[in-house]
């Protein structure tokens, strides 16, 4: 994989993918994609002309509402609350998920308990269930939201890190053993770097899922954040605000994906490709 810079990695895939070279076909493909975007906006606008505004506001109205959004400090502060919820939840989920995954690997007697009972159970438990239980336990506040999002993210992190641990190259480990007898050194110099791509995949998935879930959590269990705003707008049939918030999240997630995750993924792929 020499010139990965020319490669293109598709959306939410987490496995390192083989980059393809950009040719003339790619260029016209981009053009068609832009055309499609314009066409979709046009259809949206046309449709919004026929149906009542509470069902489907036009792109113009939604865009104006988004501008309000950016300029109003109140709305921006709600956005920060949501980002705060997500950051804390991802952090907690990483700690707990990693503890589960590492325990399954390094404390072998617990392997079956974690791999066949705990992780599948957490994985199958409905997100809404955690949310409602948290509501009953903690009431309407930050704790409820963070708890619900964390519980949903834990199995995702655990599964990814566990997969990484299972893929650990035994030859590498053996080589490490012949260089250093200190378990700590082998851990930081070999295990952690080898796990990096999996940590990154877990982070990327967690980020995507947490944005979706945090809104639900805030809608039912929060007294602040974008989901709370969404709930207020829903009760007032303020469809323009609903669209504006959704559009805002779409833009935010896509920007993070394009500017942050995609370039980092490319570097990780280049660094860790075994080809």
């Amino acid at each position, binding site marked *: 994989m020499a010139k990965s810079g020319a490669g293109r990695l598709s959306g939410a895939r987490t496995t390192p993918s083989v980059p393809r070279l950009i040719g003339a076909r790619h260029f016209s*493909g981009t053009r*068609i994609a832009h055309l499609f975007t314009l066409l979709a906006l046009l259809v949206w606008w046309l449709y919004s002309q026929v149906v009542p505004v509470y069902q489907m506001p036009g792109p113009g109205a939604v865009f104006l509402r988004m501008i309000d959004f950016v300029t109003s400090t109140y709305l921006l502060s709600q956005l920060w609350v949501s980002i705060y919820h997500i950051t804390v939840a991802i952090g907690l989920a990483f700690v707990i998920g990693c503890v589960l995954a590492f325990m399954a690997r390094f404390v072998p007697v617990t392997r079956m308990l974690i791999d066949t009972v705990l992780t599948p159970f957490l994985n199958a438990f409905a997100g*809404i269930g955690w949310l*409602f239980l948290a509501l009953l336990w903690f009431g309407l506040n930050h704790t409820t939201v963070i708890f619900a999002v964390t519980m949903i993210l834990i199995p995702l992190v655990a599964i990814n890190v566990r997969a990484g641990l299972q893929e650990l190259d035994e030859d590498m480990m053996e080589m490490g053993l012949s260089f250093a007898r200190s378990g700590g050194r082998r851990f930081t110099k070999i295990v952690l770097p080898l796990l990096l791509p999996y940590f990154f995949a877990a982070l990327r998935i967690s980020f995507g899922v947490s944005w*979706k879930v945090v*809104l639900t959590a805030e809608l039912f269990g929060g007294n602040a954040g974008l989901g709370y705003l969404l709930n207020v707008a829903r009760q007032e049939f303020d469809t323009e605000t609903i669209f504006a918030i959704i559009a805002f999240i779409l833009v935010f997630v*896509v920007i993070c994906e394009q500017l942050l995750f995609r370039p980092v993924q490319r570097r990780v792929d280049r660094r860790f490709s075994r080809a």
Partner: protein
Amino acid sequence: MHSKTASLGAQRAVTVLGVVLLIAGWAWAARGQPEYVLPGPVAVLQAVARFFYEPQLMAQAGISLFRVVLSVVAAMILALTLAGLVRRFSILDETIERRILTFFNAFPSVGWAILGVIWFQISNTTVIFVQVAIILPFCLINALAGFRQIDPDMDELGHSLTRNVWRRFRLLSLPLVAPFLLSGLRVAYGICWKIALVAELFGASSGLGFQLSRAQSVSDATMVFACCIVIVLIFLVTDLLFLKPLVQRFSANQ
């Protein structure tokens, strides 16, 4: 730090012990707590049992299962159509991967739920629309990956052996793509149960999601627990009985 293993017996013992300890800890924590805060394991088990003999609750679970299955099938067909389009007209791949997929991937699920209710009111259509919209990106990612994995040489070989498109599809493309489709199906089915229940909270007056929200609104923690456990049970049983054998069958074909 080479991989250590423990004997199967010891692992099994720890597993059983762990589960027993967890349940005992739960019972201990619930002792003395009012039922609406933390119901004990026995109360929850009784509530779960009600799903097996009360026809009304059974119907709620049944209708949820029906909606989830319908949504997964619909989403898979849509994803296959889109991925098929990419394969047939490769010029569309930018449009579908970087526009449609990105859009659906980034769209918040509650957004769909709220919009679904605004557009279709409270109905089965709303629930299925919302669920399809939520799981479509997961199906699409797998369908695209599956079609991309088809070896062009294999395709050529197929071409030289038969001109019949249907036969080529049935004997060559399908077995090659099936592992990806089925793993996508399994993921989508799991997500549908977990996240897409949101759809029923807003858009339905029946089903497990509705049951959950009703239990929550009257602070019936026992029922909330029971609904969650019933969901886990339905998911595990259907996965074990239908999806796992299907996945195994087709991966053995490879």
